[in-house]
């Protein structure tokens, strides 16, 4: 998804930095190789980026301008939760849900193109007041969750997987909005984690709440 956009815009002072919130040893490598990205594709086992920018899921993105100023704080990056209407046996998504998902992605990519072309004059680049109003507000529980997560990862890497897993579990309990933390403990299958009953149970528990927070951008569902 990002490679084509990067190729299109890289000569206009634009770069993508993708950061994998994977922490199991070796996890993201086959995916990086399959995608052969030419932009930096980084690995963040301790979820440092998630902590710094309060990211809770993938894909989420932040727009940062030439001076290092955030002009769009963390938000879902062109994602829409059409998958929630998937048939869980056939894994087919109804056509209308798939269409909304595709439109969300197109809208988001067009917004990036607009920003790259117009800079701060783009409607999608927020001024300081609007950007600040959208800045995430991590709580003390979230701050503690990241400390627990880091300890858990350290212990898992250093031969203490059982205690490490307990800290990851505690981190997930303190920061329930984070799918990124929860995912590090979820069972893996060849079908991918989305096929797991645990995942669907957690999605269903959202009820009316969104899996991807709504994005305040014209044309987004």
């Amino acid at each position, binding site marked *: 998804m990002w490679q084509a956009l990067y190729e299109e815009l890289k000569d206009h002072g634009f770069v993508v930095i993708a950061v994998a919130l994977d922490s199991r040893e070796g996890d993201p490598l086959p995916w990086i190789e399959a995608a052969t990205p030419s932009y930096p594709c980084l690995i963040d086992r301790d979820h440092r980026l998630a902590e710094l920018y309060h990211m809770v899921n993938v894909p989420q993105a932040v*727009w940062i301008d030439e001076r290092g100023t955030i002009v769009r704080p963390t938000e879902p990056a062109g994602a829409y939760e059409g998958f929630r209407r998937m048939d869980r046996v056939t894994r087919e998504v109804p056509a209308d849900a798939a269409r909304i998902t595709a439109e969300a992605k197109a809208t988001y990519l067009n917004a990036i193109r607009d920003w790259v072309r117009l800079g701060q004059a783009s409607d999608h680049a927020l001024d300081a007041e609007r950007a600040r109003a959208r800045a995430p507000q991590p709580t003390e529980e979230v701050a503690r969750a990241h400390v627990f997560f880091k300890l858990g990862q350290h212990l898992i890497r250093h031969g203490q997987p059982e205690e490490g897993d307990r800290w990851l579990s505690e981190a997930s309990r303190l920061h329930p909005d984070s799918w990124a933390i929860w995912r590090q403990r979820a069972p893996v299958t060849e079908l991918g984690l989305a096929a797991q009953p645990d995942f669907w149970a957690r999605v269903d528990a959202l009820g009316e709440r969104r899996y991807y927070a709504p994005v305040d951008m014209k044309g987004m569902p």
Partner: protein
Amino acid sequence: MTETTETVLPDARVEGERLWLSPVELERATGWSSRPEGLCRGSICVPIPPGREREFLRGDQIDAAALWRHLGQPLVHSADGGAWVLGTAAADRVAALRSLEAPDFSLPDRTGRRHSLSEHRGKKVLLVSWASW
């Protein structure tokens, strides 16, 4: 482990919830040091509350855990006390995010080469999370 670094501390003494470090190790691990005016990092100094010196200091050792709690920052240690994480308070994180100055970081790519956000100053950056899951 702190927000940015992982430091091995051979001289550390762990006693329950206390993490006694030499001044050298404290500074190496956290950037904080002991000065006559209190415990300091850069231009910031935190005086030790009068009458509570023994909670923070023992000979030339400093209890890094007491310092961290005094600063209102989260911390945790493994069951055996062998690994400690000294974290960053939510209030500091919120203030940093509200400043709109994008926090810098340095992370490895799959070849182990490290990249930082600040290397890309002068460009527009789409910083995006992804995962294999």
